């Protein structure tokens, strides 16, 4: 099989090498509960704080539903009711509009020494409101493309590389109507980004998708 120039393993390795040799990526410290990460870290190389919530429950016997509402002195925010495939489909638009809020929230959690769930509620409300605004806008302006992409995702185990054709339509609609452009941070600049290549390496259909 002949690969296009930008897909050769040597080039990919070279891209990885350049990424790894980036000074901020190399000096990633061990994440811990009771220490603060160095302040000059970029959001890309940051490691998440290890908490109990990130552990899979072992041998859990029952569920405990605590229906106590939030206390009144905490301002209310409406939770997002969008389900998994719609969220995955809208994720890059959310990232494009809400990057500042999201980075702010993650920075707050990193600097909260494991108390981020309590100390970063204000930043968290901003994240929720911003994401809800993006979902609302896509619903009003690009509902058909949104639904088509989600239908494709749902029939392909929610993998993006099988659904590039509806994704292209959704991306162009979102860019035209909302002005949000899909970008993946850290993508090598001299290559066609993977979501714009018509042939996808591991897709079920090996030919051109669009």
């Amino acid at each position, binding site marked *: 099989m002949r690969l296009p120039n930008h897909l050769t393993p040597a080039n990919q390795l070279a891209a990885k090498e350049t990424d790894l040799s980036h000074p901020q990526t190399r000096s990633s410290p061990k994440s811990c509960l009771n220490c603060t990460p160095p302040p000059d870290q970029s959001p890309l190389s940051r490691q998440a704080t290890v908490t109990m919530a990130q552990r*899979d*429950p*072992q*041998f*859990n*016997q*029952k*569920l*405990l*539903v*605590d*229906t*106590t*509402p*939030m206390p009144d002195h905490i301002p209310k925010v*409406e*939770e*997002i*009711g*969008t*389900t*998994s*495939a*719609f*969220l995955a489909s809208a994720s890059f638009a959310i990232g494009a509009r809400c990057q500042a809020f999201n980075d702010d929230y993650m920075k707050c959690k990193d600097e909260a020494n494991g108390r981020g769930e309590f100390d970063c509620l204000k930043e968290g409300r901003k994240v929720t409101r911003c994401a*809800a605004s993006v*979902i*609302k806008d*896509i*619903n009003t302006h690009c*509902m058909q493309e*949104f*639904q088509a992409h*989600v239908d494709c995702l*749902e*029939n*392909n*185990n*929610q993998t993006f590389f099988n659904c590039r054709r509806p994704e292209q339509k959704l991306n162009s609609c979102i860019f035209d109507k909302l002005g949000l452009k899909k970008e993946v941070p850290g993508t090598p600049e001299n290559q066609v980004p993977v979501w714009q290549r018509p042939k996808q390496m591991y897709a079920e259909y090996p030919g051109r998708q669009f």
Partner: protein
Amino acid sequence: MGVPFEALLPYGIILGMFGLSGYGISFVKGFANDGKKARWNRDLWDRQMMERDLRLTGSERGQSSNPTAPKGFDVSNPWKVEKRIF
């Protein structure tokens, strides 16, 4: 000289049994996944997102693009309780 039809009966039974079980399995799988293709290779994130979909839509494969959650969703998140071992 033709083959007597009794010689073909076992093949008919084999075909029928495999066909029945195959149809049954695909029917049950489709019923459990709301007529969509089944998910595979799910990790912790996928599993908890499917539980969240169940809380939002009433079905693990149900989807909704509603930006605001229905009433009571914010307090319906269950804790998975483990027994103390030591």
